[in-house]
């Protein structure tokens, strides 16, 4: 049996109820966020876009593509896996890890973390810890496709694709193909 | 004391019948269909139970002198009594070994203070070192009828031949622990595919069989009598059976553990399953069981081998070999004989009458203060009786043993059949499964 096939990811048990954003909506939102980034960040050369494994990676790629398009410059991009930095290891279903790939020493860089859904904030806390092992960034900003509320830590995104107030029993799945709301099956 | 065993199934040497047994002044006073209880008699209802001659163990390591932390004669006798034993043969691998008259007398004296009869097997060689003969004649004069270096076999064939030549005119029997140490060296379980996978050095079946072959030929050469201890392979037994057909005076025993456990028990590296000879494969176990039912074994003997707990908590290859046996032997023999299919005549043949014959305990011996064992259950015999309830269902528990040691491999195993009453030398020693 393949190791990945045997793992329980949260997506396996997701039962979608309705589509909230289409793929076009998602692209428009990312494009808007890219413009906000350009407005706020003066030196795009120092920017490193890091997608959080695994849900943030596709958004980070899309965002970096759009940024490169708008600014006509190369945008450094990479991935960050926070499995080994979580403070709730052993308390939650085991999620398969994926590799971190940080293209440069982050010292004096502006790091833009990108994730699909911002929820409790614990993943971002872990990511901030992880970043420290790759250098000392000048500043760190956060872009998320969906902010669904229910923060457990004092963390606030800099760029938001869509604010979606949710109940705790609901699940959000955000991909570049669209955003769905639904519930998690007990199966 | 007077006891009336009411409505039990009396198991004679050849047949069974329901009857009452009256025990008075150390003897069976009367056997009959419905006896009146004399005044003052304790009446014990044993309906549905088997009543037979008290069990006799040919092979008990009582550890005294030298390793009293594991067991002593008194605790070993208690363990034996709850297991239904009325006589135990104490093995000589104590520290120092029972290789002279003084040490044998010491054990006999201690044994006489227990409710059971404790006989002694003397060492064949001095210090069980396999080099010089021990004073067999002096010990024989004291009443010793079995000699062995058990723990190891006598490795030197020339010395073994000399021992057999010397023993023949004394009318005693030599008993051999059959394992060629050169072949079995450093092994801690049966050699085979499992030992190879587990990375444990094996003791090959051939190490046992080779010595069985050798000793059969030595018996053929010398005409002496020989007993083969704890045979564990089908081939060993076949060799002994063939020798018997040739008219040689050879007897043999099997242990409860070789009848009820196989080598797969070692897969968890629990040293409680380490024993010499080792637990064998399932094929050998079923062959041994068949042979037991067919009456090819003279005795089931426990090889009761107590060890202090900390020694069994060592690594498998560093832990000592051996396991407890006295307290579960009845139930395990019942299982090996097929449970519901178990023939009570065979049951008492291998647990009492056979071993009593091998150990020459059939008649009482005033020199060593022994009563007679393995009788036919007729009036006038010494009252050594065991009552076994084949309906009883219970579970072996490590923390419920009379032995000082705890190294039973059967902890948690469901058992069928239990000794409820032991009358040894006319005294009620165990009643309703409990020591009196």
């Amino acid at each position, binding site marked *: 049996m393949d190791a990945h096939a045997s793992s329980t990811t949260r997506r396996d048990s997701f039962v979608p109820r309705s589509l909230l954003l289409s793929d076009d909506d998602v692209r428009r939102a990312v494009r808007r966020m890219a413009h906000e980034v350009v407005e706020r960040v003066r030196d795009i050369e120092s920017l490193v876009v890091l997608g959080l494994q695994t849900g943030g990676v596709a958004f980070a790629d899309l965002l970096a593509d759009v940024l490169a398009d708008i600014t006509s410059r190369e945008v450094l991009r990479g991935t960050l896996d926070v*499995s080994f930095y979580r403070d709730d290891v052993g308390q939650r279903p085991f999620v398969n890890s994926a590799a971190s790939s940080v293209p440069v020493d982050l010292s004096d860089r502006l790091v833009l973390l990108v994730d699909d859904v911002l929820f409790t904030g614990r993943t971002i806390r872990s990511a901030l810890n992880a970043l420290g092992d790759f250098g000392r960034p000048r500043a760190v900003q956060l872009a998320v496709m969906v902010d669904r509320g229910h923060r457990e830590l004092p963390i606030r995104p800099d760029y938001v694709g869509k604010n979606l107030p949710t109940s705790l029993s609901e699940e959000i799945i955000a991909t570049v193909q669209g955003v769905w709301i639904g519930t998690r099956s007990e199966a | 004391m007077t006891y009336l065993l009411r409505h039990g199934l009396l198991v004679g040497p050849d047949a069974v019948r329901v009857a009452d047994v009256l025990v008075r002044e150390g003897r069976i006073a009367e056997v009959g269909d419905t006896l009146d209880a004399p005044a003052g008699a304790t009446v014990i209802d044993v309906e549905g139970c088997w009543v037979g001659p008290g069990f006799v163990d040919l092979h008990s390591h009582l550890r005294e002198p030298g390793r009293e932390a594991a067991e002593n004669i008194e605790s070993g006798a208690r363990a034996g009594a709850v297991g239904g034993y009325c006589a135990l043969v104490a093995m000589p691998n104590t520290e120092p070994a029972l290789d002279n008259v003084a040490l044998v007398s010491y054990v006999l004296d201690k044994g006489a203070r227990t409710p059971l009869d404790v006989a002694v097997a003397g060492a064949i060689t001095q210090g069980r070192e396999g080099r010089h003969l021990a004073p067999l004649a002096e010990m024989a004069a004291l009443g010793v009828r079995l000699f062995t270096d058990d723990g190891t076999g006598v490795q030197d064939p020339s010395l073994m031949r000399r021992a057999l030549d010397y023993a023949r005119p004394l009318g005693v029997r030599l008993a051999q622990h059959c394992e060629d140490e050169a072949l079995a060296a450093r092994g801690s379980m049966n050699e085979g595919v499992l030992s190879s996978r587990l990375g444990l050095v094996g003791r090959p079946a051939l190490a046992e069989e080779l010595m069985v072959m050798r000793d059969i030929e030595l018996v053929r050469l010398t005409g002496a009598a020989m007993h083969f201890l704890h045979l564990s392979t089908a081939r060993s037994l076949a060799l002994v059976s063939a020798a018997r057909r040739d008219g040689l005076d050879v007897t043999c025993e099997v242990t409860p553990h070789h009848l009820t456990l196989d080598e797969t028990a070692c897969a968890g590296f629990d040293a409680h399953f380490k024993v010499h000879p080792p637990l064998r494969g399932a094929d050998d176990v079923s062959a041994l069981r068949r042979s037991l039912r067919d009456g090819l074994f003279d005795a089931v003997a426990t090889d009761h081998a107590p060890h202090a707990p900390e020694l069994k908590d060592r690594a498998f290859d560093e832990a000592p070999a051996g396991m407890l046996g006295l307290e579960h032997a009845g139930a395990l023999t019942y299982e090996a004989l097929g449970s519901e299919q178990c023939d009570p005549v065979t049951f008492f043949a291998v647990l009492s009458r056979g071993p009593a014959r091998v150990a020459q305990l059939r008649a009482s011996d005033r020199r060593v203060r022994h009563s007679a064992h393995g009788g036919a259950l007729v009036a006038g015999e010494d009252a050594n009786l065991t009552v076994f309830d084949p309906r009883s269902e219970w579970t072996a528990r490590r923390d419920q043993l009379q032995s000082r040691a705890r190294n039973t491999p059967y902890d948690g195993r469901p058992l069928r059949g239990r000794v409820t009453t032991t009358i040894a030398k006319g005294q009620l020693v165990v009643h309703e499964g409990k020591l009196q």
Partner: protein
Amino acid sequence: MITSIRGRNLLTLDELTSGAILEVLDTAELFVEVNQRTIKKVPALKGRVVASLFFEESTRTRLSFETAAKRLSADVLSLAVASSSVKKGESLRDTIATIDALGIDAVVMRHQSSGAAHQVSGYVPHVRVINAGDGLHQHPTQGLLDAFTVRQVLAERVHAKGSETGQDLFRGLHVLIVGDVRHSRVARSDIAAYSALGAEVRVAAPGTLLPACLDGWPLSVVEDFDEALEWADVVGVLRLQRERGTGSFVPSLSEFTETYGLTVERARRLRPSTIIMHPGPMNRGVEIDSAVADLPSAVIERQVSNGVPIRMAALYLSVTGTPEETTL
């Protein structure tokens, strides 16, 4: 069979499915990346205590495990057995109870007796036990790092990451294991790992250095060593365990070298792509010639460096995982 070592002991590879093995290999690949960083440390086992109990000294394995534990931010308790009460005849149960009383989450254990790690796992069921080599039985992390190294090398040749190739590169792979199989826990773990992953395993050894019984083992014994060398994609040379009395199993070391040593002449029969492995420490000039050990196709140093990420993966999965529904 065990389908994942998450939250479980790692005692033997005999009972692991290919999926369980691949999970460790894939996780180790992530730790390779961590080991390439300037700061080679993640907080995955922060606040956890890993005891390293080496009843049999092995500086290399011990360092590898302790480095792995420290790179996961675990606290490492290291028992110096030579100066401890173990030598005074203390039982395994008492030794582990003493260490456990200090509050530990995992124990990494090396012992000269087969099965010692199994026994300890029974004495302290709440502690995760990682077998770092027990007698002649198993050395699971060595088997895992050998498989990991083979996949890494083969994947590089097709410009892929090992994890992207999954089990594919092992299917039908010809693995030849040479030398003292009888006394080798490494061989037992290697055979289990390679065969679970779909490789074809053959062993070459003098009759005395084969296990007493090979019935049912997933391997065949080669008749002609020289021919087998041409057949092999991977040659795993085993250390001749002289400290275990192997000396009396062969007439002389020179005869062993003559018949089963990987000499320069023999190595000429190997294809240039054939991977040469040795678990170390090598008896140069006995089971392997110095010049052969230094060939480009020899990956002996890479085996050593892969030890740390494999052991990080084993500790991480075993200590932080939960063992639900992971057996077949």
